[in-house]
């Protein structure tokens, strides 16, 4: 896997039509780290990720990959450095696990460049890294949600990019599979030094798995940094309009959010 490229947003504004979703955002994604973006619904976090992945053209500013505008670079060149797994991807009916993962090799091939041993190795490595080797011959449509998500991640791994972006990779998964997927991404980060950037909903898992946490609200970054420094009671209250206690996670010692609601919240009310 190549050393991860640098990825920056500079004065980045994104939107759909006239509607601005992300406004004038400037930040740098730490290389070789796990970055997690959190924020309330409709805060622009998925839009920001799509912008970083050049799936959405900026209305102003730029995304810089290795210092060069990602939208000016040839699509295939970008695809060798940066991969993205969107939310709820669709697999063609009847496709097998191996075939789907093999399609991750797309940017490494061309009209005249045929399938090689390199491609076979990349696919085999992606299957074993995600624990999907024994599913290789199965159809993707017969798999469980957790297995399917691991297969999609395997496809992104087979692309062998230094940067991997994921939009809510744990949605629709039960807690076991959420932890499994997040562990897998940290494996990838630690084994290959890959830069991982993902949007997550679950604050406590975000705080546990992130090296770098970006907190967004209304299309802007409220704060960013190490989870223990960033995730305070006042930040959560400001961003999510919800009172809470922040205590150390008894397992990982990272911040753990305990919400305070109108009912069943004891004396904290």
């Amino acid at each position, binding site marked *: 896997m190549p050393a991860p490229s640098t990825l920056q947003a500079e004065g980045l504004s994104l939107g759909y039509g006239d509607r601005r979703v992300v406004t004038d955002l400037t930040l740098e994604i730490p290389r070789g780290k796990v970055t997690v973006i959190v924020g309330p619904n409709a805060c622009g976090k998925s839009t920001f990720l799509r912008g970083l992945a050049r799936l959405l053209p900026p209305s102003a500013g730029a995304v810089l990959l290795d210092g060069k505008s990602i939208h000016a670079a040839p699509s295939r060149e970008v695809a060798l450095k940066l*991969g993205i797994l969107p939310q709820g991807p669709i697999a063609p*009916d009847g*496709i097998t696990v191996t075939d789907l993962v093999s399609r991750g090799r797309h940017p490494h091939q061309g009209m005249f460049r045929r399938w090689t041993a390199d491609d076979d190795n990349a696919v085999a490595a992606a299957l074993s890294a995600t624990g999907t080797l024994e599913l290789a011959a199965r159809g993707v449509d017969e798999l469980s949600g957790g297995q399917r998500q691991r297969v999609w991640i395997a496809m992104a791994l087979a692309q062998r990019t230094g940067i991997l972006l994921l939009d809510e990779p744990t949605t629709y998964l039960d807690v076991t599979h959420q932890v499994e997927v997040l562990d897998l991404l940290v494996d990838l980060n630690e084994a290959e030094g890959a830069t991982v950037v993902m949007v997550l909903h679950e604050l406590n898992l975000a705080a546990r798995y992130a090296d770098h946490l970006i907190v967004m609200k209304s299309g802007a970054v409220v704060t960013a940094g190490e989870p223990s420094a960033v995730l305070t009671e006042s930040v959560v209250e400001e961003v999510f309009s919800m009172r809470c206690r922040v205590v150390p996670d008894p397992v990982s010692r990272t911040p753990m959010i305990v919400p305070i609601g109108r009912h069943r919240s004891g004396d904290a009310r």
Partner: protein
Amino acid sequence: MPDTRVRRTAALSTGLVVSAAALAAAALLSLTVGAQHIPFGTVMDALFHPNPDNGQHLIITESRIPRTVVGLLAGAALGLAGAVIQAVTRNPLADPGILGVNAGAALFVVFGISVLGISSLTGYVWLGFAGAAVASVVVYTIGSLGRGGATPVKVALAGAAMSAALTSLTTAVLLTDVATFDQFRFWQVGSLAGRGMDIALQGLPFVAVGIVIALASTRSLNALALGDDVAASLGQNVATARVIAAIAVVLLCGTATAMAGPIGFVGLVVPHVARMITGPDHRWLLPYSMLFAPLLLLLADVLGRVIANPGEVQVGIVTAVIGAPIFVALARRKRLAEL
């Protein structure tokens, strides 16, 4: 894992060879069977040593060879176009008609007959081709308006709306013009009969270019099948891939429709049958569709000659009659692939 890949490649390659052989047999059948029975030996003679003074040889060279060649070309074109259009629109019910191709071709032909007084089949071919091209460009342009560019759903909606509009115009002309209606209805049912070698030769270059473009885009179709976002993530330029595929479709089904009239069901059914054998990999799906479709078309044409002997039933009718039950059976037996 590499082993299963090698084994599958071998099996699918063998299947292609078998299909090609079946297609060759169907072509011979199409040369042999007809209103007048001609012995197989005479057919071979006519093929390799044609004698213009021999009446039976003349039937072969002037009638059966051209209609067989047109069947091969139109069939291959429709099968490929169907597979490509289903991939690009990610719509399992898409067929070449979805881009407004048939409706556009029909309107131009009617216009040609009614206003320009054209009555030759060659004239219809060029009109049909122009109509198909214009209609698809308009449909694609309308489908690309607004946010998100040419999404599959918008193009399909634009195609359906445009088809309805064009068809109503065609009907309006036909209702008021009986003479045009009489000429038009022969073109409209879709037939391989009465097509001379000149029509086959005019269509050949367009079909050839369409085949090359379609087969060259199998890789990008595989990427598009994963959705626009994943395709873009894999380095595929989505808009370019769509436009190139659309050009192939216009060339292929524009030419097929122009040569043989609108033939239904082939472009819709054949890719589904092929997909059951090949799975969703377009590198195999396209070649299989390209062989299965002319096989179906030629057999339907032969059947049309046999059941109504000494007359014949037009191939467009036979394919629809055969195609509908096949499609229903497929849909019942196995869930059709949702793209």
